[in-house]
């Protein structure tokens, strides 16, 4: 249909450019102009979720124009805030409280309408709970095979993503005319949130009903930095033995470093820590400057979520623990002694 026509136009333009202008630079910019990305941003209570701007960073890597999309009640101010983000050309906002909770049953039709209207070649969103819930539904409605959790962009149709808990890296080429993609936040650093000047425009609102009703939420309140985007993360595992010990040892260490707190699946399963703190294949992916873990053996599912950290430090009493194979600094010892000592010494500095 429309998107197919678009692709053939793209192809034609490229062939012609290749014939007439063999030099690479004008060819690229002319071709890049035909790419258009829609970056789906997240908002909560009228505030922009800054980590969702990773979709914009990924769009910048693709080249071409970037339009950002945001929906909910009172989102005009969110749109104006996002308009300052570098790299965005246009913001489309849809003001309607029905989209506040990001329910995919009405958000997907909303996005589909706006995608059809804008004729975008690429739809990007963060690989967050919101993006994971919504984008596959959008992809199915548009009959497109989504590409999840990309960590790299090779070209407009070729993307890199980890598979098998990060034990293999897949480079994949999409033949779909519209590429629907979720991006790994830690692989695409948030763009500058100042100096941009995007135009703000109202989008179409199909006002689809949602058969699903949002009832309530219970979010862990924390003054600490957000786990997904923190510079430093301290993480505890089964070695902490109980929730009491976890709560006694980990928060002071985190505070001494100004770090976020994470946990292994074993610690979460044993009830030491909340599920939202889980780092790993099926939890959060983090890539901080420092990942300091105690009492974590280093199962492959856990490593999948943290091995892109700049520096990994580990405290574990088992010298054979696999975590030491990836740790830059390893300390073999009893965490019940070493963690408080470390906390004290960091505090006194």
């Amino acid at each position, binding site marked *: 249909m429309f998107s197919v026509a678009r692709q053939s136009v793209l192809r034609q333009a490229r062939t012609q450019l290749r014939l007439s202008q063999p030099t690479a630079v004008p060819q690229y910019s002319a071709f890049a102009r035909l790419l258009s990305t829609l970056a789906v941003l997240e908002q909560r209570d009228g505030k922009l979720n800054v980590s969702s701007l990773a979709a914009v960073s990924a769009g910048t890597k693709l080249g071409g124009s970037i339009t950002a999309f945001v929906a909910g009640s009172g989102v005009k101010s969110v749109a104006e805030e996002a308009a300052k983000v570098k790299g965005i050309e246009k913001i489309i906002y849809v003001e309607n409280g029905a989209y506040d909770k990001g329910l995919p049953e009405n958000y997907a039709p909303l996005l589909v309408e706006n995608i059809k209207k804008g004729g975008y070649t690429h739809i990007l969103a963060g690989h967050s709970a919101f993006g994971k819930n919504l984008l*596959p539904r959008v992809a199915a409605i548009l009959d497109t095979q989504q590409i999840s959790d990309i960590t790299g962009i090779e070209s407009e149709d070729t993307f890199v993503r980890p598979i098998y808990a990060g034990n293999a890296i897949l480079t994949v080429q999409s033949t779909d005319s519209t590429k629907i993609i979720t991006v790994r936040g830690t692989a695409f650093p948030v763009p500058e949130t100042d100096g941009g000047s995007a135009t703000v425009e109202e989008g179409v609102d199909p006002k689809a009903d949602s058969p699903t*009703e949002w009832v309530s939420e219970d979010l862990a309140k924390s003054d600490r930095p957000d786990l997904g985007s923190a510079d430093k993360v301290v993480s505890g595992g089964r070695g902490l033995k109980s929730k009491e010990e976890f709560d006694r040892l980990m928060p002071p260490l985190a505070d001494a470093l100004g770090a976020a707190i994470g946990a292994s699946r074993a610690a979460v399963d044993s009830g030491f820590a909340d599920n939202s703190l889980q780092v790993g294949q099926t939890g959060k992916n983090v890539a901080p400057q420092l990942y300091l873990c105690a009492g974590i053996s280093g199962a492959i599912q856990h490593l999948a979520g943290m091995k892109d950290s700049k520096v990994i430090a580990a405290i574990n009493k088992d010298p054979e623990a696999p975590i030491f194979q990836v740790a830059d600094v390893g300390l073999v010892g009893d965490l019940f002694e070493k963690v408080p000592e470390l906390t004290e010494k960091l505090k006194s500095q």
Partner: protein
Amino acid sequence: MSGLRILVPVKRVIDYAVKPRVNRAQTAVETASVKHSMNPFDELSIEEAVRLRERKTPVEEIVAFSAGPPKSQDILRTAMAMGVDRGIHVVVEEKDALEPLGVAKLLKKVVDEQKTNLVLLGKQSIDDDAGQTGQMLAGLLNWPQATQASKVQIEGDSVTVIKEVDGGVETVKAKLPMVITTDLRLNEPRYASLPNIMKAKKKPLDKKTLKDFGIESQPRLKTIKVTEPPTRKGGVKVDDVDSMISKLKELGAL
């Protein structure tokens, strides 16, 4: 509503404890003579379906489904040993493996055919880590969806689901029919007992092909290459907390 007709799609994947190796030609992960088992999240879906019945929720039937190589019937038997009533196996050779969109399209046909009113899927399979099939199926059926469920409550045709989201949990409510994907905290899957494994061998298992459903395996994505991730250099071991701090400073992490 007379009762729940539950469909539980399951996938045969490389066992979660096995470290996958990329093949020499860098075209895929080595799967020959590697231990396979049921995708861990699918075990949670089956457990939940069986528990619904045990909790006296009216369950008419629990059907397990898999689209995969002939060996996928092993995991369907496992599902039956856990309490599923019967299985449907769409035989798809590994070279024709379906993408999530293809699986979702196939599942839509199965749902129509089986008059399913609840589909329980795992939130992701641990091989391709896509996390798409459930949401795609819900989109194709235009049914409500609840992803990453950690608690499911069904009363009549009203379903309340607690979902794991970034930073906590969220509760949503919808009416059947519905698609739910399961998260780790939902339950603790049971082990199949030997008598149940024996009984499972007698439960009906339908063998089908993609053609029976009018589905073709036409991949939209082309694998360019599969590589090993960059390996981290082994670091140093230090003897005490002071040297740990000084080493971290040296590395610029403090």
